[in-house]
């Protein structure tokens, strides 16, 4: 738990637990930070389709913001998709042809 903001450590979701989560601890230190930044950048390429933006919060959670200023704290990718869908009223679906077209055009 973070002593300052009383956040419980999340991080147990498989997508953030490393490639050998069954036997080893999740990445830590610099590797973990770089991976989180990479994740946020990639997710933002997708969320551009939904008019939302994700940012890291304390290396522990994420903040999801809509263009209209709605803000949510989310802990894991499944929560990101559920909340983005609620905010944007657009399905968070990787098979959405519109999303795939946007991804292919984003440099």
């Amino acid at each position, binding site marked *: 738990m973070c002593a300052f903001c009383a956040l419980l450590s999340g991080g147990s979701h498989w997508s953030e637990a490393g490639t*050998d989560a069954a036997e080893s601890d999740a990445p830590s230190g610099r590797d973990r930070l770089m991976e989180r930044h990479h994740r946020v950048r990639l997710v933002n390429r*997708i969320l551009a389709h939904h008019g939302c933006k994700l940012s890291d919060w304390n290396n522990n959670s994420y903040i999801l913001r809509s263009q209209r200023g709605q803000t949510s704290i989310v802990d894991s990718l499944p929560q990101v998709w559920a909340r983005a869908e609620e905010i944007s009223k657009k399905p968070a679906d990787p098979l959405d042809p519109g999303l795939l077209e946007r991804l292919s055009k984003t440099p």
Partner: protein
Amino acid sequence: MAAYSRLTPLFIVTGFLGSGKTTLLNRMLRHPSLKDAAVLVNEFGDVGLDHFLVEKMDENTVLLESGCLCCTIRDDLKDAIIELNSKRERGEVPYYKRMIIETTGLADPSPIIFTLNSDIIIKHHYRLGSIITTVDAVNGLKQMKRHAESVKQASVADRIVISKTDIAEAGDIERLRAKLERLNPSAELIEAVNGDVDVKRLLRADIYDARTKGAEVRRWLAAEEKNDSEHHHSHDVNRHDEHIRTFTLTFDEALDWTAFGIWLTMLLHAHGEKVLRVKGILNVKGVEAPVIINGVQHVVHPPMHLKAWPDDDRRSRIVFIVDDIGQDLIERSLAAFNAAAAADAAAA
């Protein structure tokens, strides 16, 4: 948290009404290697009550807000496991090393899997072992034609026990085997006569058992390769049960792990109910060892490394069993996410 392989494995025994679950379970419970197993059943019925730990669950389910049927929490199951765990910790019951859960014949096994993965206490003490599905050699084909539950039970299985082979016609057994191999090529088919099966084979080898995981992955890959080659040669357009499709995606280039996690979580968010199984071996950028992934509907088990590649093929191979989702679309989508990761790396 303890390493996943050291957690207590939970085996699910499922199968349609009259398919021989209870006979199989009784046979299993009499086996000496299962003296250290706890068993959870829906009905005491004919299950051997002389076994030291047989507990009954009262079916009691809670549907989560998402309304997705596979994301239903089975409170009865959760409570029963936690209570048994407390008794084990306090020494009130013998220290069981594995647990077997028998479902009802009409049960969709997904809520059970979801429940096991959604409770923090259960997650810290238990892991999913194998899903064992019984299919009746006499009536199995008809049941799969008429009952979606029966197809689903076979689709999510790791081991399929074909029961009643002693009273079925040889041709029926062959047709059923062919159907099951097409529906779920990576499941191991085991024939039982009067409930007699190799119990050790059923329970000892699972994908998270350090001693057997390499062999298990080799078996998946061989089964899917055989299935693919037979498919190409026969051009069997009816290979899949109405809506269920089984296919393997192969990627020559190493995959970006972060992009893969983003993609799979999003796919399961949108279509988890329709992704019956996803499992595979991945070549991940920057990771020497092959990475194994294994999921059932919305539940993805922790990824793990294999010590070595099972053969000279270093491509990522992912097997999907899906309900009414096109292979092309899934392939195009994953490739687009991986290309986005490459573009991001180039721009960073």
